[in-house]
């Protein structure tokens, strides 16, 4: 039946499909593949002897390629699901169990030297982390900066991160607190769209430790505390409604509970009245810790003694300042975590100046810089 004409093609009740023999059609000996269902030569039905090939070389990675991301470029570091250990997809959800992975911006950690560390966390209630921190260590100088993005403004998470990084770099190079605040303000304004109806804004708290000399500056309600082994002090003064009440003679505990107490009166941002920080200094004489934090932490321990108690407990139960900072954040979250929580710690020892050389620690600083870099690529 060679050259079976098309118009009378066999019906299924007619010719039964037959397998190819030696790669050729059993009817016309035309070469055929093992998975062909018809002979390309004569059209006779064939019984396939092997499975058809995949329609396209669809590898696992090709299937999970991010939509619209066809360019070869710097791959995002692979993230692992905290729940099941599966890979986190580009959409932020685990590719195995579907659990939402926290965004990298939701938690920042830094430990540029063994005696300097900090953690910034989203907290429990807020849906993103608008706090930021930046820590720098160089020969003879430790810099701690915390900025708290104001949550009513647009993109304040981006603004606070930019501000903290810029201020810390400025302080590392110049040590000039007023200039650092001005540069941080520039960074906030630069992230604000020209037509933004609600300009990004952030608080500013910075501490510079040089030998036994501690200098600090604040705008808004992020704070600088000193926690010694037996003493403790709130060094900075808030720019807040509560502070205004306190200056009018109302006790701190009471003032901080009053109407609009948490409203800040000064900040960084395009609509800031002025960006000259309140500045202070202190010469340290005994061993202890410089603590810079956002209100997400001190809301649960505003009085210096209360905060010091938590800091000392965290340091005692943890190995090193990074672990202690994590413990403090976990404590604030356990207390309710109503705001973003950020805390930075730097140890001072009078005998062996802590702000010694730290050439090896520049690598650790990269963990701080990476979120900034990631942001600027967006």
């Amino acid at each position, binding site marked *: 039946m060679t050259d*079976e004409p*098309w118009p009378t*093609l066999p*019906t*299924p009740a007619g010719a039964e499909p037959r397998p190819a023999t030696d790669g050729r059609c059993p009817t016309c000996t035309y070469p055929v593949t093992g998975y062909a269902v018809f002979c390309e030569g004569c*059209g006779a039905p064939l019984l396939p002897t092997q499975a058809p090939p995949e329609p396209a070389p*669809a590898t696992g990675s090709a299937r999970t390629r991010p939509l619209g991301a066809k360019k070869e470029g710097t791959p995002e570091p692979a993230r692992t699901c905290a729940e099941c250990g599966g890979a986190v997809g580009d959409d932020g959800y685990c590719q195995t*169990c*579907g*659990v939402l992975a926290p965004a990298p911006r939701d938690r920042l950690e830094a430990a540029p030297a063994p005696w300097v560390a900090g953690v910034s966390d989203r907290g429990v209630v807020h849906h993103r982390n608008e706090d930021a921190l930046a820590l720098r260590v160089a020969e003879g100088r430790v810099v701690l900066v915390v900025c708290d993005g104001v949550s009513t403004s647009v993109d304040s998470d981006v603004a606070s991160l930019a501000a903290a990084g810029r201020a810390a770099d400025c302080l590392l190079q110049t040590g000039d607190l007023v200039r650092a605040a001005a540069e941080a303000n520039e960074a906030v304004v630069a992230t604000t769209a020209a037509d933004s109806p609600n300009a990004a804004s952030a608080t500013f708290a910075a501490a510079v430790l040089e030998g036994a000399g501690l200098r600090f500056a604040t705008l808004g309600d992020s704070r600088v505390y000193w926690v010694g082994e037996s003493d403790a002090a709130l060094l900075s003064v808030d720019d807040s409604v509560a502070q205004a009440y306190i200056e009018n003679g109302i006790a701190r505990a009471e003032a901080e509970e009053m109407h609009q107490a948490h409203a800040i009166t000064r900040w960084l941002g395009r609509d800031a009245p002025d960006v000259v920080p309140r500045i202070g200094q202190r010469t340290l004489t005994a061993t202890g810790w410089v603590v810079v934090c956002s209100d997400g932490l001190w809301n649960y321990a505003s009085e210096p003694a209360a905060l010091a108690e938590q800091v000392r407990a965290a340091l005692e139960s943890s190995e090193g300042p990074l672990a202690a900072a994590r413990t403090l954040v976990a404590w604030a979250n356990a207390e309710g975590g109503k705001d973003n929580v950020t805390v930075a710690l730097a140890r001072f020892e009078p005998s062996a100046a802590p702000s010694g050389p730290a050439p090896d620690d520049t690598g650790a600083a990269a963990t701080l810089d990476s979120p900034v870099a990631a942001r600027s690529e967006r």
Partner: protein
Amino acid sequence: MAEFSSAVYQNEYLPDGGTDVNAIVTIVCKGAGAAGQTGSGDAGEIIIVDTSGSMGQVNMNAAKQAAMVALDHILDGTWFAVVAGNHKAYLAYPMVQTGAGMVRMDARTRAEARRAISFFRADGGTAMGTWLNLARALFASVGPLANRHAILLTDGENHNETEAQLDQAIAAAVGQFQVDCRGVGVDWQVPQIRKIAQALLGTVDIIGNPNQLGPVFAELMRASMARGVANAELRVWIPQGAQVQFVRQVSPTVEDLTHRGTPVNQLTMSYPTGSWGDEDRDYHLSIRLAAKSIGQEQLAARVQLAVGAELLTQGLVKARWSADTNLTAQINPEVAHYTGQTELALVIQEGLAAKASGDEATATTKLGRAVQLATETGNAEATAKLRKVVDITDAPTGTVRLKQAVDKADVMALDTASTKTTRIRG
């Protein structure tokens, strides 16, 4: 290049212990281009015309005219063939004895095909399985084509082969080509033709008046040639331990895809959607998850449209467990709407089947429910078609009486249109 986008409509909030997530995923295709013209491969079209004796002179002449009109709408360069079918299948055009059973459309082949069609004569019986088998062999004879589409016109029951033979032919054609089926007159079986169209990702409709054949064929061919995206698949990823309860296309028509999936990997199934033009389609997914604690959020499904290895769009279906009953008690309006539309299609088909078997009580109940659902979901077309089959006493409660004298064409029109849905937006 076609651009796809997607949108997800759902209430992602689940109560404590809640496990079932329902979502409507709308996928929109824009800039699809013309079939065979987008650089992703050639297109092939086969026109299959019933030439059985029952067609008679009137229907046969109308069918010949319609087939010629369809030729006019096949773009030049498209591979095509014309099949004449009765109890056997005949390749009417191209007039080749062996080799490729399709040719490229140009002015000359179009004229030759018209002449071949003009010789059609109504004679013999009906065996649609043979028609599908020939079409499949013809597509296979020209090698890889991106789009493979056929129009099948019939007028009668499939007398000259067994149901098993037809099923076998349908099964062999699945994934090979798409078929839009049209029935002329009232002597064909809606479920039989619907079976072909559903399996082969096409549509089914009745053409009551032979004069309508030309315009219908023109529209079918125009629509097919405008489907520049071939062989797209719906991919559904679910988390480990979850279950797909169902996946349905719910607009423009209801098509249950649940059991048509093939695994892509352990957590992802792929469902065929055929070719796409510039259009929107809605899918209803129901996913069962293991319950998580209050406050937790997780992904219930990733719904993607893929062509080959390329993902073109992705919609995320989410689940969030909440203690707030104001959030968890709400039923998403799109989900509610399409749940109603799916039931509407089912009760119309069940009601008509009961009516055909003489079970008037069941028919009245089912068609009454259909009237109620069509009213609730604002499906005016279904209501209008139901009105020709039942007298409506009270639509909101679904109180109806079966009409005593019903035009069979109206029953068949209600049946074929049962799966057509309306949308809600805004």
